[in-house]
């Protein structure tokens, strides 16, 4: 086994899936000769040629829209949107079409496609390069949303996403791209979509976090009897793991980068408030970005939930 970072793990997943199944085709801006602006598709153009690794014009709506047509025709397109901040032009294609083509055609046509995109803050890039608007996409019945948290699960989740019969939005936390290396086996393995992972067992409080916030949470909870859940799939959310944990700990803190209001933390809190409220000892605390547009580099550290804010939330809820 080899030690790989997340970029390499995703690259390996793509390579292996492309070798296994010639219906798997990559498309997007700069995914070809350049190998992607983060080098995620590096070497694939050389290995599989321009018919399998397609540089598209600069047109996000057409990238997702064409993927819908390709998938309906029988391919397994893996589209890249260069940054999540540029996906909004393809929102219509995702929501109106990718999400609904199976329903609309009563199962005659489907959209087994993946949209991969770098996601989240923390790389001090220009405006719109540090977005984390996962909640939008979790409100789209028919679309799955996945966020890997490390190289190992990135590979297994991406393989599962590519094989999934429906559209999957695969959000790659840029901050984790090269942060850690892990043992990543070669060859096939998939992690089931819709299953969360207990990143750290504990008894006094449940903390849910994903993407780059998960790393931060793991550090922040040191010294606390906290159970940390890494959902990995944000939609459909693994309510069972969440509820089991909260029923045990009686306390819940959710941490995310996105602005607080209508972020995914709301759904997680609401699920617990509906289905396990009698097990709760205190308030459900959401530690999230404030309700402002994601700021540029000079202010980003003030925007993101800090370790102090996370610990303050733990301290507060543990009072109950």
């Amino acid at each position, binding site marked *: 086994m080899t030690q790989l970072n997340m970029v390499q793990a995703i690259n390996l997943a793509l390579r292996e899936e492309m070798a296994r199944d010639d219906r798997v*085709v990559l498309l997007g801006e700069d995914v070809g000769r350049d190998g992607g602006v983060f080098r995620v598709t590096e070497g694939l153009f050389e290995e599989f040629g321009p*018919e*399998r690794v*397609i540089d*598209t*014009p600069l*047109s996000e*709506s*057409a990238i*997702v*829209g*064409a*993927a*819908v*047509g*390709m*998938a*309906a*025709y*029988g*391919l397994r*397109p893996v589209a890249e949107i260069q940054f999540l901040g540029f996906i909004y*032009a393809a929102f*219509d*294609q995702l929501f*109106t*079409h990718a999400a609904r*083509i*199976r*329903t*609309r*055609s*009563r*199962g*005659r*046509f*489907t959209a087994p496609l993946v949209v991969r995109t770098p996601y989240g803050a923390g790389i001090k890039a220009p405006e719109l390069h540090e977005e984390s608007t996962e909640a939008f996409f979790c409100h789209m*019945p*028919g679309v*799955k949303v996945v966020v890997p948290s490390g190289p190992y699960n990135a590979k297994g989740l991406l393989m599962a996403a590519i094989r*999934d*019969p*429906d559209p999957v939005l695969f959000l790659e936390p840029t901050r984790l791209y090269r942060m850690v290396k892990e043992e990543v086996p070669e060859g096939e393995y998939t992690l089931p979509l*819709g299953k969360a992972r207990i990143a750290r067992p504990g008894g006094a409080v449940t903390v849910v976090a994903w993407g780059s916030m998960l790393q931060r949470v793991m550090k922040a909870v040191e010294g606390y009897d906290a159970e940390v859940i890494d959902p990995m799939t944000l939609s*459909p959310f693994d*309510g*069972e793991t969440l509820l089991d944990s909260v029923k045990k700990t009686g306390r819940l803190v959710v941490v995310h980068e996105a602005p607080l209001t209508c972020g995914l933390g709301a759904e997680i809190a609401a699920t617990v408030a509906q289905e396990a409220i009698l097990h709760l000892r205190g308030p459900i605390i959401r530690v999230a970005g404030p309700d402002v547009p994601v700021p540029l580099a000079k202010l980003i550290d003030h925007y993101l939930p800090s370790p102090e804010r996370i610990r303050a939330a733990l301290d507060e809820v543990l009072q109950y």
Partner: protein
Amino acid sequence: MPESILATFTVKRLEIIAPDGTADESLVPDLSGDELRRIYYLLLLTRAFDGRALALQREGRIGTYPSVLGQEAAQVGSAFAIHERDWVFPSFREMGAHLTLGYPLHQLYQYWGGDERGLRTPDGMNIFPICVSVGTHIPHAAGAALAAKLRGDRIAVIAYFGDGGTSKGDFHEGFNLAGVMGLPTVFICQNNQWAISVPLSAQTASRSLAQKAVAYGFDGIQVDGNDVLAVYRATREALEKARGGGGPTFIECLTYRMSDHTTSDDASRYRSPEETEQWRERDPILRYERFLAKRGLWNEDYAAEMKGKAGGEIDEAVRRYESVPPPAPGEMFDFVSGELSARQQRQREEASP
């Protein structure tokens, strides 16, 4: 060379049958008498389907419905050139194309009756479901064509849309992709000169829609959209070109929406009856009848017989449509995903106790 000419482009227009039914024989497509009569029947069937739909809507037996009156030639003529293996991406006003392609008539009524199940294309037909969001299916057509090209399938992909559709960003992105990748696509615009109440002159300053192809490096042609043979000929050539690797073509069928936009609309609010009247003289069926008559393929008796036959087909379709039991509540969940989430399963149980 200070100020020089960089490039010159021409846009052509095709007509075959004159209003009086005479035709340019050098351009009349090579079709048998049976085929020419089949086209006639499909035109009649389209009109009968449409008329009945309007009646059903008035009686509350289907919902809002967009009439195809006046556009029969553009739809039948183009669809008649399509092969079974080709892929078709319709908008919402191509019932004439649907029925030419053999789409079950009762399913069309079912769909406009508010029942999704009408959109399940029978196996073996490659017709994408009706696209209500204007123009947004154009990238799908490009994608399917790209897939076909990568697979080496010698097929063509057709997308239908209206003049209003040419203003959408997705029109541009889909056309550009098709152009740069040389995809086997045929884009058919029914320029019926209105997008609800917005006339073509308020839709674009382009002199023709066909010329928009210049922006993407492929051919655009305008055809007389009320001339079924011109539409057929242009489409067939474009399809052959596409299947043979010659890349995309944009065909503008200049026609006219004789009806209100839909049964919810009242066109008298925004256009003059005189304008519509003028177009009545250019009725596509009338013109084709004159053409057929000159060839000895048509007379009043034959017309009456065919109208009767079409009416019977429509009666049967309406009967079938109305005999389908309504969907069960749980059917909302049937095709959301390959597999339902635990939450959706619970919701499904709640919905269908």
